[in-house]
């Protein structure tokens, strides 16, 4: 089959790989019809995630059609259209029983940090990803959601990661009526966090980024106020000035480990790798949030450490909430929001490419060219 292949930092190509096979009785093989490139794939691409092996296939946002099922699969059969959460979860461990599907302890032998994830290095279990024509889906009875007949693949594609991640980011903020919410990052997750903040009843939503076209898009798509931090002397001061000197009630970090805005952290974390990337957005969130407020983190960070002003968070009495997204538990709820027209998930897709042009797709997304918000790959062409 054809698949995206990681060829070392900053290099991807398309290659041929053997078709996946059933390896566990509850596996399914899915023929991928749409796969997206996620901002967190760029952390892999840039060599920031440990044990990312040359030759692996990325891709944890995908939908497709079940091709084959293992002998213990009861709820899926060949021909079913499915949206597959990026987390691989057993459904019965200590964490899964508590809804913490992103923390499943039965799917990742390599690390206790997170559950298995498709195409996200051996640190999350060494599973092949969905930027390929076919993919192996473990615990097929637990993760995949059947796509309703009245929904198109692209309408539900982002239920596999970025829409639930954005929603969980807003939900972890504990937003109350009247709250001002600041979202750092106007990329796909940030956009969905903004939309979600409105659904949760925010009074005011402000997006912070430095890419003008993305801020324009956020204003149109999510009806938010925007700030370009490169045009402000000090973004933290500006945010406090906009909120009666106190700071926003809730801040959401939808940026993660490659934030711009601090030469010190870009040098230490991104260039020299002396910390796990640049935590600038998180630091701004801690510094800007009002005393007693909440900082919610859905941007991805990794081990071993980052320079973060934890003393500021402690003394301000902040609540810090964070996790990878427990995707499956949000899928039915958000499906209804899509169906009722409250969230146009498909509306953030700006580019579509056949899998054979995966390198170009990555380049466009990574370098933010041609107004790119979200790239979708079509592993089997347009059929």
């Amino acid at each position, binding site marked *: 089959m054809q698949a995206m292949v990681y*060829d*070392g*930092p900053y290099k991807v190509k398309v290659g041929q790989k053997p078709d996946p096979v059933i*390896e*566990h009785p*509850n596996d399914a093989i899915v023929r991928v019809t749409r796969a997206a490139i996620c901002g967190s794939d760029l952390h892999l691409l840039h*060599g920031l995630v*440990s*044990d*990312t*092996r*040359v*030759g*692996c296939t990325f891709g944890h946002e995908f939908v497709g059609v079940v091709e084959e099922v293992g002998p*213990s699969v*009861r709820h899926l059969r060949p021909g079913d259209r499915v949206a597959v959460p990026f987390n*691989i*979860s*057993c*459904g*019965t461990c*200590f964490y*899964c*029983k*508590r*809804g913490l*599907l992103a923390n499943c*302890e*039965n*799917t*990742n*032998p*390599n690390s*206790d940090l997170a559950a298995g994830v498709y195409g996200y290095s*051996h*640190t999350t*279990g*060494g*599973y*092949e990803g969905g930027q390929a024509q076919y993919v192996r889906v473990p*615990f097929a009875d*637990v993760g995949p959601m059947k796509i309703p007949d009245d929904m198109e693949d692209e309408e539900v594609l982002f239920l596999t990661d970025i829409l639930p991640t954005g*929603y969980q980011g807003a*939900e*972890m903020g*504990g937003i109350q009526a009247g709250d001002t919410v600041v979202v750092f990052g106007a990329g796909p997750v940030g956009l969905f966090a903004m939309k979600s903040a*409105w*659904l*949760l*009843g925010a*009074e005011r939503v402000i997006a912070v980024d430095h890419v003008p076209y993305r801020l324009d898009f956020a204003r149109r798509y999510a*009806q938010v106020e925007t700030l370009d931090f490169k045009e402000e002397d000090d973004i933290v001061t500006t945010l406090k000035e906009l909120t009666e000197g106190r700071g926003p009630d809730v801040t959401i970090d939808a940026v993660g480990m490659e934030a711009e805005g601090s030469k010190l952290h870009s040098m230490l974390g991104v260039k020299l790798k002396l910390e796990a990337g640049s935590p600038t957005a998180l630091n701004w969130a801690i510094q800007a949030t009002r005393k007693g407020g909440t900082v919610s983190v859905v941007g991805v960070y990794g*081990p*071993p450490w980052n320079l973060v002003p934890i003393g500021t968070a402690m003394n301000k009495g902040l609540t810090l909430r964070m996790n990878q997204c*427990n995707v499956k*538990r*949000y899928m039915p*709820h958000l499906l209804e929001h899509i169906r009722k*027209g*409250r969230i146009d998930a498909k509306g953030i897709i700006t580019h579509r490419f056949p899998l054979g042009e995966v390198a170009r797709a990555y380049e466009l997304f990574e370098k933010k060219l041609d107004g790119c918000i979200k790239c979708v790959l079509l592993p089997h062409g347009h059929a």
Partner: protein
Amino acid sequence: MADQTEIPGWGVDGDPRKRPGVPMLLKPRRRPGAHWKEPERQRPPDVPVLKRKERDELTPTFGTALPPRGLSGVLKRVAYELPEHSVRHVLLLLLSDRVDVVESRLREWGRP
């Protein structure tokens, strides 16, 4: 500031009881679809699969892609013998990744 009346669905999830995350915190239960108490185990791999030091055996499922090989594989094996929270574990893995790139380039050049 935005006019909330023009935002589709503004406030529909305002009640915390309607938020998907909250009820899940109340009562541990098996997830829908899971029809086992303990998941079956994946068949033993026919390629080397590494695991963190703290585990006695592999998890019930695991990936079998790209088994460790060459010098990078040796470094990974050493790294996974160190506790995951140890800085040396992470740094050795990152080093092994760089060695993996060099080894893969050498393999490419060595091909006819």
